[in-house]
């Protein structure tokens, strides 16, 4: 076990972790933050996407021990983020979720896309979102919600 310190959703905390423990398992099992979902555990599905040092990252492809000293945000920590508020509302309005499994990753990636590209068109969003897999709603409504959020935020 190795002791790490992270700033998780704005709060500093220290914890012992196993070297092989992924950030995703650390968040879910040790910290009880279950908004981060695990689909494939090898970087293909995007359900576990979180924010490390301000950048979107796959938490299944990050070792907790390597995040020592880093700032991490999960969906729980973005509850009061203004951009996330708009995204949540547009996901609701556009029916952009059904089972909800991919939704945390979609929201985090949606926020990352809007922060980088401001007001992307549908084709850009589709490309940028291609690392997030949805197996029930389909992508049309999700793309529509992110485009709408971008337009609303640019006003």
């Amino acid at each position, binding site marked *: 076990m*190795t002791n790490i310190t992270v700033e998780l959703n704005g709060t500093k905390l220290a914890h012992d972790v*196993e*070297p*092989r423990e*992924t950030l995703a*398992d650390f968040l879910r099992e040790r910290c009880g933050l279950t908004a981060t979902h695990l689909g494939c*555990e*090898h*970087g293909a599905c*995007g359900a576990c*996407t979180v924010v490390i040092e301000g*950048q*979107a*990252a*796959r938490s*299944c*492809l*990050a*070792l907790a*021990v*390597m995040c*020592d000293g880093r700032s991490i945000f999960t969906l729980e920590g973005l509850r009061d983020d203004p951009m996330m508020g708009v995204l949540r509302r547009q996901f609701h309005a556009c029916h952009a979720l059904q089972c909800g499994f991919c939704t945390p990753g979609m929201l985090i*990636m949606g926020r*990352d896309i809007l922060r980088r590209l401001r007001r992307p068109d549908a084709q850009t969003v589709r*490309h*940028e979102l*291609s*690392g*997030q897999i949805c197996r029930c709603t389909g992508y049309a409504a999700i793309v529509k919600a992110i485009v709408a959020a971008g337009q609303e935020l640019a006003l």
Partner: protein
Amino acid sequence: MKSAPFEYVRPSTVVEASAALAQDGVAASAIAGGQSLLPMLNLRVAIVDLVVDISRLEELKAVSESPGGLAIGALTTHAAIEDGKVPDLFRGLMRRVAGQISYRAVRNYGTIGGSVAFADPAAYWPPCLIALGARVRVRGPAGARSEPVADFVRGAYSTSLSAGEIVLGFDIPRPSAPLRWGFAKVARKSGAFAESIALVTVRGGETSVVLAGASLHARLLPAASKEVAGSNGRDDVLRAAIASDLDAIASTADAYQRRLHTATILKAVREMRAQ
């Protein structure tokens, strides 16, 4: 799927990291971005005793431009290149290639050094760096050395790295005339590994046609390079040159794969010629 247990160390210098990687009887692997190694560990395709974290070694982060060209540290991420945070001496080629790799969340962590050291047959940086005539800088227990990327990558997941050696970065020569380039690939889904990647560069007097995905590692195609340099513009002559290159490097390719590789190369050549 979880990785099997391993030990972890985070050395603070290249020398310490090199010593940790060179221990006898210990299956050790360096980790930087982890975007290739961690999937393999999670899937237990790779099993190691020790993971050596080189992600915070400052010596591997330096990026500098000189009259001779660009020196780019091994830890430079695909996203940093995509976003233009690295000097562009190659008229957008590296930015274009960087943006094609996997997905943004992966590009934020994956590194150019990791891509080349891992040497996946369908990785993007080996063909790009070969097409730019780049050299790789390496340091290990026996000291520092440098060699062309074209010689460094030797097979599928195989390089000339010996125990304890670490990729420090790459030296990419400044083209003697404005670079003309073309890039084409075929992948079933954006972000998925490509089945064929072709890069064409004209750097002053030097023309390179490089193909990845066709064999165990990215290769310069000598006949096609010569034909493009001669540049009579005739597709049928170029097709014959490509066919002879494919006979030499991809003798087991089926008819579909041959058409596929021929198409990506011709597309990259057309893009280069349009510049």
